[in-house]
């Protein structure tokens, strides 16, 4: 009924056992009477793209314009000049403070940078005549304790938020985000009152400060959580089926894989107390024994008279404070960078 629909060749198949009609046998005998469709050739022609004109176009461009290499060179020069200027601006205060700390001819503020007389007088004074060793000890103690406790809290929070699914998880994460946006100093007075009641101000301020630093440490979970998220969840699941408890999974599998983020967290915890001024000086009130380095050094130059007397000593203190942190950073730089970027990019 639909024979007219079909144009082209007809293929009829007869099982080998049956006798083929004479015409088919004849057709098969004369194989070359069948033409294979020309389609493949057409397809090949379609598939080969015309590449040559494009190349010509590119060559033409080169002749007209400044070469890409020259362009890059100019751009690079500009970028490097800008960067060099930024470097100088950024490093000048540091160089200044180092130079000032070695100045022996006077102790006040002067209008030049290079000292006329070099020496370690200021460093000797810093350790012998001021309360600096005590402040340094206070800060070191706060740094170590904060680093340990904060790391424990932060990693625990991050792991839980990364791996567990529970009611209110999202709400909690948002809440922490919002709370993190309030400056911590809003609670300054309140915290002082509490700490005062617990006798953790003045000379005892370092202990009170540890509580304050550690209390909010879980809120800095973002980077660690981002890092944990990059570790496949099926790793946890495999370990659970293999018989590990959550604790074993965390300590045996996740932590060894998270070295960069652990070191990053420790570093951040350790550094916090060294740079804190507002909270530290407020809590210590007027008791010099309770100062951290920042508050103590500021106390050295808090009146014009004292400033005139102690300015170079203050600079020497600044250099001493910078040393341990610089050394730590140099040693752990590899991990630090991996920690920050590892947490930022989901892999």
């Amino acid at each position, binding site marked *: *009924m*639909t*024979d007219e*629909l*079909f*144009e*082209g*060749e*007809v*293929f*009829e*198949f*007869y099982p*080998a056992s049956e006798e083929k009609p004479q015409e088919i046998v004849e057709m*098969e005998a004369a*194989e070359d009477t*069948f033409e*294979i*469709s020309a*389609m493949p050739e057409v397809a090949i022609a379609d598939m080969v793209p015309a590449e040559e004109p494009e190349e010509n176009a590119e060559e033409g461009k080169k002749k007209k314009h400044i070469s890409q290499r020259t362009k890059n060179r100019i751009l690079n020069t500009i970028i490097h000049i800008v960067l060099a200027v930024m470097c100088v601006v950024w490093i000048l205060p540091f160089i200044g403070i180092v130079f000032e700390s070695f100045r022996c001819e006077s102790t006040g503020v002067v209008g030049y940078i290079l000292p006329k007389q070099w020496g370690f007088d200021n460093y000797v004074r810093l350790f012998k005549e001021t309360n600096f060793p005590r402040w340094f000890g206070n800060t070191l103690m706060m740094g170590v304790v904060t680093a340990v406790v904060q790391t424990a809290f932060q990693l625990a929070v991050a792991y839980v938020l*990364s791996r567990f*699914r529970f009611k209110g998880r*999202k709400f909690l994460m948002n809440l922490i985000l919002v709370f993190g946006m309030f400056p911590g100093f809003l609670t300054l007075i309140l915290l002082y009152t509490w700490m005062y009641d617990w006798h953790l101000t003045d000379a005892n301020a370092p202990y009170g400060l540890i509580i304050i630093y550690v209390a909010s440490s879980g809120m800095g979970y973002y980077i660690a959580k981002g890092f944990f*998220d990059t570790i*496949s969840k*099926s*790793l946890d*699941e*495999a*370990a*659970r*089926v*293999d*018989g*590990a*408890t959550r604790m*074993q999974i965390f300590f045996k*599998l996740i932590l*060894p*894989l998270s070295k960069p983020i652990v070191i990053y967290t420790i570093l951040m915890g350790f550094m916090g107390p060294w740079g804190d001024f507002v909270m530290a000086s407020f809590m210590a009130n007027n008791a010099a024994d309770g100062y951290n380095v920042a508050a103590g050094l500021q106390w050295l130059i808090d009146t014009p008279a004292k400033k005139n007397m102690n300015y170079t000593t203050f600079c020497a203190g600044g250099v001493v404070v910078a040393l341990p942190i610089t050394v730590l950073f140099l040693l752990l730089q590899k991990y630090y960078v991996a920690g920050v970027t590892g947490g930022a990019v989901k892999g």
Partner: protein
Amino acid sequence: MAEVVLENVKKIYGKNVVAVKDFNLTIKDKEFVVFVGPSGCGKSTTLRMIAGLEDISEGTVKIGGRIVNDLKPKDRDVSMVFQNYALYPNYTIFKNIAFPLTLMRIPVEVPVRDKEGNVTGVKIKTRKLTSEEIANKVSEAAEILGITEYLGRRPRELSGGQKQRVAIGRAMVKDAAVFLLDEPLSNLDAKLRAQMRSELIELRKRIDTTFIYVTHDQVEAMTLADRIVIMKDGVIQQVGTPTELFDMPANLFVGEFIGSPKMNTFHTRLERDEEGYFVELCGVKKRIGGERGEALAAKNIEPQDVVMGVRPEHITLSNHEDKEAIPCVIGVRELMGSSLHLHVKTATGEELIVCVPTAPFTLAQIAKLVSGTRIYLTFDSKSTHFFKEETKVNLLVEDAPVETSGETQQKQEELPHKKWHRIS
């Protein structure tokens, strides 16, 4: 080495999103069962519920006669292989395989003594495996899997196939009652997959335990399984041996899912006269005789609108003398080597796929089977399948589940919890 029984198991996400509906299945001891279905059908969820990685919303799961609903994965006596291998990157291959053993405690009998030192009874205590025992087990597993030389390496130094072997090794050493595999071969390339498939069959003979294997690949299901559980939208469509599923699909979904290329379907009407059943296809009257006709007659099936299915490999080429042959024109031809896939169009505009083995043809004949050539197709009535037009259920299968529509699937896309995962 245990029976796994799932009774009315359900998985509900959030309040009313049902991922697995009323799952009932008894997996016999030492049976190899494959869960197969399109993605999102709930097969992985079911497996994870058996493993204990996912809560069971309703129903019970029993392993070896023990209800395990509230047991932790480690207490269920299961071991599992994951799609992405889930090897511990910080450990060597040896430690990876040894990991479950180091956590394991085995029972030992400790004699109880009274004050004088006389043995008065026996107490059961547990102890950890000694490092020697662990080393023996690991090297034994490594030898079976051919990974002995890699034991000192770390996972990242291995290829995909080697990694998956390590993952299987890690699951093996536990001697668990149930061996769960979640799409273990999906991350491998096609050639390696075929090789690992045959290795799994070998391995299965050696391990000899209960296997539950999840895959979306029907070839894996057909080649590995003792029994296949085919799922769609959280509902079991059919449970049966590979041959049963192939020869007597319970509904159109099963028919189309099993077999490659896909089963051809015709919307037509099953008619009956004095001589028996027949259908009219593309203007050609086709008698349904033989086995199939008898089966239809035995059930006294009424004439009705049906979807008729014929597998591509059951269609053969014929000639114009055959009164029941359907004339078609070849659209696209795909030469697979051992067979030739022809995409053809009938006079009434229906598109079919025909899978023709190349062996019975001469090269000249194959060269003639190109686009534009007219051919005649026929098939044996015993290889036809009839599904009810409205429900898509096989007329010859009793109690077949009605094929569900795609609605549930769409609902899942909009799940709040899915978004949740994306944000996290």
